[in-house]
């Protein structure tokens, strides 16, 4: 079945450094979504990418969807302690009656 792989599993950075997490799917995706889960919290929807090669920005966060629609990345510029948490990508093949398949997530820790 469809699999979504995410790397790295953990990343520790100093505050102010950049951070990137990568997501790869075994199949072509209809769309990809990104979620953030703060420690002790639940996943919160950040964004969805639909088009091949699409790039979207949310302040210091940049999301990309690959040309082949099989990979995606989330880049955070100049991390802050508020960026701490686990970032999940989740893909869909777009077929009716299917659900998102989540990657295992990348847990980001930031030291000041």
């Amino acid at each position, binding site marked *: *079945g469809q699999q979504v792989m*995410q790397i790295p*599993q953990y990343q520790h950075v100093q505050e102010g450094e950049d951070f990137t997490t990568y997501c790869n799917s075994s199949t072509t995706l*209809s*769309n990809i*979504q990104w*979620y953030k889960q703060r420690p002790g*919290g*639940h*996943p*919160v*929807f*950040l964004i*969805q990418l*639909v088009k091949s090669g699409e790039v979207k920005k949310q302040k210091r966060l940049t999301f990309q969807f690959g040309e082949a629609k099989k990979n995606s990345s989330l880049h955070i510029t100049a991390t802050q302690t508020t960026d701490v948490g686990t970032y*999940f990508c*989740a893909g869909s093949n*777009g077929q009716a*009656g299917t*659900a*998102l*398949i*989540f*990657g*295992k*997530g990348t847990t980001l820790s930031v030291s000041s």
Partner: protein
Amino acid sequence: DVKVTQSSRYLVKRTGEKVFLECVQDMDHENMFWYRQDPGLGLRLIYFSYDVKMKEKGDIPEGYSVSREKKERFSLILESASTNQTSMYLCASRVPGQGYGYTFGSGTRLTVV
């Protein structure tokens, strides 16, 4: 804001018990989902429902069943709880179609002893 409410934040049950996890959403969403989250394994889909009385198996349905009698409520049932079902259970809902993310509940941390 959409609210997805899970009935219990923490639950402790004994092996062999029948366990009901309840999830209610207040925004008339058609699609609802149950995931379990375990360290290092991410979120794994147990069951989902895209309409009342409809249900579909996810990746790990064994040992679970679901009920969706009303649009706003999606229940996860552990027929006979086992220790390997100790986990965080997350319910989510969404509007069907492109462009809509999932809204998750706060989760139920279930411990089976």
